[in-house]
């Protein structure tokens, strides 16, 4: 497989709703591995972009290709900002997303829960977990489906710091090497900690795309400079 095949190509992608353009014609070529962070102020269009990548939204125009073919939901797992927890035990939440439950998958589910610090709570009703624990469960549930691409929409926005640390550590140490991660955040420090490459979105337009190092050391646009310096939130 050539390096071009492992890239994610976005061609003329746009998304309108009720006559308002939320994502303007976007052309990008993203790395097929590592962590790509979508950075931008609230309402910039980061989540829209992520949902277009997931296939949860259909673009008004353009296409997304991955490994030479179209990017399909079969290759993706999506974790939203608000954890979606089913009213059943933690372990049953994990197993729900599987088409077929095998003993290997059950063991894997327990291992993933253990990595997420939830091994002692696997038989607990998942609704009673804390916000951070719920989000950790959502992440573990996404991993068990073995996706090629993991899409995370501000997964640490409303959770306690120890859960944020655990999730970041897990993503960097265990997930980054084996699958592509798209991570939406408006936390610059988190972007610095996680990102291999940055896509900076401002009012529905991708105005900067570069390696994380380049972006933070030498932002090319005024908007990016303002955002990094905290003038835009």
């Amino acid at each position, binding site marked *: 497989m050539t390096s071009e095949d492992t890239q994610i190509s976005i061609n003329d992608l746009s998304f309108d709703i009720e006559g308002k353009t939320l994502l303007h014609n976007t052309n990008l070529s993203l790395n097929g591995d590592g962590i790509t962070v979508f950075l931008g102020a609230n309402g910039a269009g980061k989540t829209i972009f992520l949902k277009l990548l997931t296939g949860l939204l259909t673009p008004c125009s353009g296409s997304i290709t991955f490994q030479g073919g179209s990017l399909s*939901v079969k290759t993706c797992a*999506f974790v*939203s900002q608000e954890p*979606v927890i089913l*009213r059943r035990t933690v372990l049953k939440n994990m197993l729900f997303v599987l088409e077929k439950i095998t003993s290997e998958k059950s063991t894997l589910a327990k291992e993933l829960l253990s990595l997420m610090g939830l091994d002692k709570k696997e038989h607990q*009703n998942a609704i*009673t977990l804390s916000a951070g624990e719920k989000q950790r469960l959502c992440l573990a549930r996404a991993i068990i489906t073995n996706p090629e691409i993991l899409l995370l929409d501000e997964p640490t926005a409303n959770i306690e710091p120890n859960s944020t640390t655990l999730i970041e550590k897990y993503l960097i140490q265990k997930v980054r090497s084996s699958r592509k991660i798209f991570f939406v955040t408006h936390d610059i420090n988190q972007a610095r900690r996680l990102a291999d490459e940055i896509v900076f979105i401002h009012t529905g337009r991708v105005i900067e795309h570069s390696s994380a190092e380049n972006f933070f050391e030498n932002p090319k646009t005024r908007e990016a400079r303002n955002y990094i310096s905290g003038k835009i939130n």
Partner: protein
Amino acid sequence: MNDISEAFVSSLGLILFLDAELLEIILLSFRITFYAVLISSILGIPLGAFLASTHFKFRNTVVSILFGMMGLPPVVVGLFVYLLFSRSGSLGWMGLLYSPTVMIIAQVILILPIVCCLTFQIIESLHTRYHEFFRSYRIAKLKSVIAYIVDSRFELTTVVLAGIGRSISEVGAIIIVGGNIDHVTRVMTTAIALETSKGNLDLALGLGIILLTTAIVLNGFILFLRGKYLKTSGSTI
């Protein structure tokens, strides 16, 4: 006033000494209610869940019709079922008129829209939270409908309770299709209507007390179950 207090005391006697006639009427009422609610729940809950979680061309029309049917006048339903099952009706050959079976059918027609629409309302709000998750994990339609039902099981107990309430207190339809035949199709509500018109207030009051007690006990039981669930799950439903 004396008549009422005498009738009240007399009715308590009938209940305490388990009057055979009274017992027969009560058991038939419970049997008809049980089957009517069971059938309505088996059909109405999955249908309501399906409608709440699926978008198709005439969905809004179907939902509007079902909501309209929640207020079906029982006597009209009774008349419709009567015509259907009378000897000259299209289902007359089944010979079900004036039987408990046809009373159950009439009640299912009345209760099914209630169960379906209340389920629809409960699951529609759950669908708002779950549908993106289900789509992103490519959860099959049947599996998602089952998940909606399982996850709203405690709210759905209220739906079943509403069905029981409607069924056990219904009189208009079942008196037409059942005929209020002694030892065959006489249930609590039809018996109360008959005994009151005959001036036999003790039996009518006895049945009324049991009807009220049943409703209170059932409501209390469901509230107890919900409370227990809220305590153990920490849910805010």
